[in-house]
């Protein structure tokens, strides 16, 4: 079938068309092969080392359990979203629904958001350490990590909310006003629900960024392998766990096993975001 297509394709084509078509196929193949080799490598090196003892409740240097790190990852992600989520969504609402379009203030915020989005995570780590850990005296703690990450993901959530709200047709809002609803009611009952899939996509992107973050957490949340009991405890997320396991060269295979779990998490998050997007675009 494919062969027939290829033959049919070459019939009566000019060399340039063939070259260009070949070019895009080759580039796509390069991309795909790069991805496959990374995933293949991690699975090949890691799956064999996944064992039940890697998921015991308490980390010891014998079982090298990643469960505390998984729980820490969930806690840090949840808390950071709890702070940056409302902040980012409300900022998006202000920019689209309240601020007069093209105002100086909106321009300023947009430039600030772009700047925040462009700052490398290591600089966030440095800032988090100087400000939260040392200046405010939080020490290496979950709270220092969460606050640093919240600032880091804020622009992402803000921009996706803004884009999603912009794509809601003005006729929806006019309809709502026409029925006598106030501004606030219109925003929360009409605009926000219509923009929900876009906002959710942004939140899932942010989750992915937190799950994969190492540099910014190493110097803020520290690296203690345990389930944190309160906000001032230090703990490590999965990505930091993987980094710590690999660093002394004693536990490389367990580090690969951790990489497998990280990979599965990312695949899961991506699948969820696609599912949400699909449901909303259909409904």
């Amino acid at each position, binding site marked *: 079938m494919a062969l027939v297509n290829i033959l049919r394709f070459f019939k009566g084509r000019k060399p340039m068309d063939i070259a260009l078509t070949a*070019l895009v196929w*080759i*580039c796509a193949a390069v991309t795909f092969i790069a991805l496959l080799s990374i995933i293949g490598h991690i699975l090949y090196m890691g799956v064999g080392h996944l064992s039940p003892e890697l998921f015991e409740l308490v980390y*010891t*240097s014998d079982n090298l359990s990643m469960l505390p790190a998984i729980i820490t990852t969930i806690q840090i992600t949840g808390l950071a979203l709890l702070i940056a989520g409302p902040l980012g969504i409300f900022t998006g609402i202000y920019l689209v629904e309240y601020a007069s379009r093209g105002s100086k203030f909106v321009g300023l915020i947009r430039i600030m958001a772009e700047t925040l989005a462009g700052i490398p995570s290591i600089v966030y780590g440095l800032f988090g350490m100087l400000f939260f850990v040392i200046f405010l005296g939080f*020490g*290496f703690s979950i709270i220092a990590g969460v606050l640093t990450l919240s600032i880091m993901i804020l622009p992402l959530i803000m921009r996706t909310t803004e884009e999603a709200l912009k794509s809601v047709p003005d006729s929806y809002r006019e309809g709502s006003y026409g029925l006598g609803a106030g501004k606030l009611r219109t925003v929360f009952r009409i605009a926000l629900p219509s923009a929900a899939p876009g906002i959710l996509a942004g939140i899932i992107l942010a989750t992915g960024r937190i799950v994969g973050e190492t540099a910014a957490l190493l110097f803020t949340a*520290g*690296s*203690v392998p*345990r389930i944190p009991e309160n906000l001032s*405890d*230090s703990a490590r997320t999965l990505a930091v766990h993987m980094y*710590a396991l*690999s*660093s*002394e*060269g*004693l536990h*490389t295979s367990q580090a690969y096993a951790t990489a497998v779990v990280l990979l599965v998490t990312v695949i899961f998050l991506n699948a969820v975001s696609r599912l949400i997007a699909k449901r909303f675009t259909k409904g």
Partner: protein
Amino acid sequence: MFAISVIAALALTGCAGGGAASAPAPAAPADNPAPAAAYLPGAVHVITREEGSGTRGAFVELFELVVDGQDMTYIGASISNSAGAIMTNVANDLNAIGYISLGSLNDTVTPISIGRVSGTAENIRNGSYIVSRPFNIATQGDVDALTRDFISFIMSAQGQAIAEDRGYVMVDDSAPEYESSGMSGTVTVGGSTSVAPLMERLKEAYEELNPDVFIEIQIMGSTAGMTGAIDGTLDIGMASRPLSASEQEVLDHMEIAHDGIIVIVNNENPLNDISFDTVREIFMGEVVVWAQLANQ
């Protein structure tokens, strides 16, 4: 566009390769056998740790690589920030040479003896292997009872046995037995990445005896550990090198174990012994190809 960029990139690396081709020719053909003492044909690939690392600090000190306060380590040496990365590198690169803690050593790389003395716990204890360093812990000022209790455990017969069991060398072979004091609370320990694996074992054994205590271990590096002990964020700092003069002024420290620093090469490298001076020359960048070792 893509094709052009690839060609450009290849041309660039090609030129670069040409520029760097001052390295000796590849392996001699089979009908022209190498001299009896076989050396690898290629260039020596030196790998070191980052500045500030306790392992590097101890290594440059021991091999007299510090001259007039300047660290003379070869500027072309690759820098890895962990023993794991160094071992992966040495295991994959035929021409690599690096150094790691005795406690990290495994069979993916080959340790070489220095002046015919191999770096075993036995040789470190009897003083014949001189490339060893102390594992230090440091505290500042008055130490609370719980921290004191944990330190007394580290220095006890049980604590020293754990160090010995992990491949390190104990500092006190007639230490008293430790008895649980039934205390509770948290001790924050932080610093050297090299000491951390040992500290983790000590923590687990101690917490088993004192279930109400939590020992928190931060892996930060030796210098950060000392800084933490000075500014009070840590109860105990760990360092895998001797303390500097300025650190000793404000901190009380003690050795909890001795650790060897092992020079490692690839498993395929025929080299198994090297002199003290040669190690120094290699890490100063004076020996650049393995064949130079034949003249030593």
